[in-house]
């Protein structure tokens, strides 16, 4: 919630025609800038953002710091590319624009998108940086596009001259499949200094991850949107893996099989810890898991010594953890068993739904639904053969 006035310096030089950041470097910048404006305004409604272009005929201020997002959007539209980027004057003019901001209580920040080669000497950049530091202006640098010899070093030197107490940051974005704005979302450019704007950033991250098709998540289900389903899927996966391990161990030696179950739970805990996304809903579940970690260690120790009592302790651990969604977990287990043969690269949720036993077990738990009802049977049949018309009907019926 830092009150901030930000000036964004856009690189609209000839180098921005390149398409290595889709659809073009300039468009990628425009998208990133729109997201940044949204993030800043959401963090604090009194924040203001302004835009200037660094190349073209000369440095030109398109919008002075304003909280009106529409104005920023409008001026990003129809930008022309040409010329060379003049980073030194751009930063100085940005500083001047910030100096004349309406609300003097706002902190000053400049965000520079450095996509083309930097033709200035390191010394010049350092003196500019010192001047910014003296007037307590923070600077964020996005290094993308052209990878010049010495460009990263020059920008790092500029950053260290400006940096006061870690309020300034630099991000190097190489060309790749991910869009520029997606990469920036997880950086301090968006999230501020660890606070503020993080709500927006998390929501944006979730949206982009879902758009990518769940490639960022293990089971194609976003923990932000549906934490219980994600958790249940993860739990069942672990149980299945553990059972397979136990079966393998049992084949090797008799006693090791009983230690398999408690160890599977500890694996689950570690996996939960590792896959901990920065979402609040997920945190709740992991906290529950971690609290039982101590009990788990006892169980493990006991199981190593006395297999009989260890087994029972491990069993109680299992039941405690899954008591909340025990039915769901069992149901998923069944479905996992059936589809264990085909290693499902397709982790689509609809695929799981197609499994009739799973669906019927879900329907049993729903109040007021009789699995033998003809309309429900029709629904099940239609889910097996997904067609647009049929899907609309059952979905309406469901609601």
């Amino acid at each position: 919630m830092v009150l901030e006035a930000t000036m964004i310096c856009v690189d609209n030089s000839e180098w921005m025609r390149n398409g290595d950041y889709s659809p073009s470097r300039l468009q990628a910048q425009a998208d990133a800038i729109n997201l940044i404006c949204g993030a800043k305004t959401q963090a604090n409604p009194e924040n203001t953002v302004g835009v200037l272009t660094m190349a073209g005929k000369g440095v030109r201020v398109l919008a002075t710091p304003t909280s009106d997002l529409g104005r920023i959007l409008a001026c990003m539209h129809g930008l022309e590319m040409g010329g060379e980027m003049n980073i030194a004057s751009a930063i100085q003019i940005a500083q001047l624009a910030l100096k004349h901001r309406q609300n003097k209580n706002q902190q000053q920040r400049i965000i520079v998108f450095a996509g083309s080669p930097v033709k200035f000497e390191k010394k010049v950049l350092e003196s500019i940086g010192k001047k910014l530091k003296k007037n307590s202006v923070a600077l964020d640098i996005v290094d993308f596009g052209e990878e010049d010899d010495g460009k990263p070093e020059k920008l790092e030197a500029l950053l260290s001259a400006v940096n006061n107490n870690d309020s300034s940051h630099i991000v190097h974005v190489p060309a790749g499949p991910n869009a520029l704005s997606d990469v920036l979302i997880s950086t301090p450019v968006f999230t501020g200094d660890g606070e503020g704007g993080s709500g927006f950033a998390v929501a944006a991250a979730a949206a982009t991850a879902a758009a990518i098709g769940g490639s960022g998540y293990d089971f194609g289900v976003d923990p932000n949107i549906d934490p219980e389903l994600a958790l249940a899927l993860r739990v069942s996966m672990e149980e299945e893996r553990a059972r397979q391990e136990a079966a393998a161990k049992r084949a090797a030696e008799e006693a090791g099989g009983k230690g398999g179950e408690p160890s599977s739970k500890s694996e689950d805990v570690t996996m939960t810890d590792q896959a901990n996304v920065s979402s609040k809903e997920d945190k709740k579940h992991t906290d529950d898991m971690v609290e039982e970690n101590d009990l788990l260690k006892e169980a493990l120790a006991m199981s190593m010594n006395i297999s009989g009592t260890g087994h029972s302790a491990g069993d109680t651990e299992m039941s405690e953890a899954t008591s909340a969604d025990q039915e769901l977990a069992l149901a998923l287990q069944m479905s996992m068993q059936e589809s264990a043969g085909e290693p499902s690269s397709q982790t689509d949720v609809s695929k799981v739904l197609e499994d009739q036993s799973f669906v019927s077990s879900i329907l049993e738990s729903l109040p007021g639904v009789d699995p033998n009802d003809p309309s429900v049977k029709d629904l099940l049949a239609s889910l097996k053969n997904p067609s647009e018309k049929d899907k609309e009907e059952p979905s309406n019926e469901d609601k």
Partner: protein
Amino acid sequence: MACLHDHSCEDHDCSSGWTLYEHIDLPKVSALNEAVPGSVKSVFKAWEQRLNSSGLKFKRLLIEIQFRNKKAHWSYFLLQGHLESNEGDPELLVYIPFTSDVKIKSISVVGGVDGTSPSKMRAFINKEGIDFSDAQGMQAVQEWDLVENFQGTLEYQTRYSKFQNVASITLHFPNSFGGDTTKIEYIGFKGEATKLKRDVVATIVYELRPNPSDHKTKAEGGGLSHVE
């Protein structure tokens, strides 16, 4: 213009006059070109502590401020009890708002040793958001040539008529006595505080269209109101 204390301080209480530090709005004090952000707050203390640079008195306050900003360097403040400018640049600008309007009679500044004391002081009154280019260009309300004053016994008198309704004062120290940085241990103000508060107009209601019901006068109650 400076007065020198050439009597022993046991005769009368020297610290009685230097009470304006209580009226400083400490959370809003800021400085430009300070090496450690926030260290400027340690410079305003009671006259008795002016030579005490450990800053322990302000421990709780400084931790509270830094904790709210979630910065992890609040332990630094336990040791850093003075204001220092950045390496190689002895210029300093200190903005001091008061909680109520004050009249300032004189100012005392204790600098650092080895040439790090400030050599000149320029004051601006009731101007917010001054930065270095503004300070260098503007005419100051008053300027003083300072001398090295390690004991804090020197005070610099003000032209009292100009310092009557001070809501905030900005002190600009352009140079030091040859040192690489400028260090300030203590800044004290002598004067008196009024209970008045100089405030900008906080809430203004604008009318887009006049509404007669908002403008009823007592004489025109009941019956048709006639708007002219």
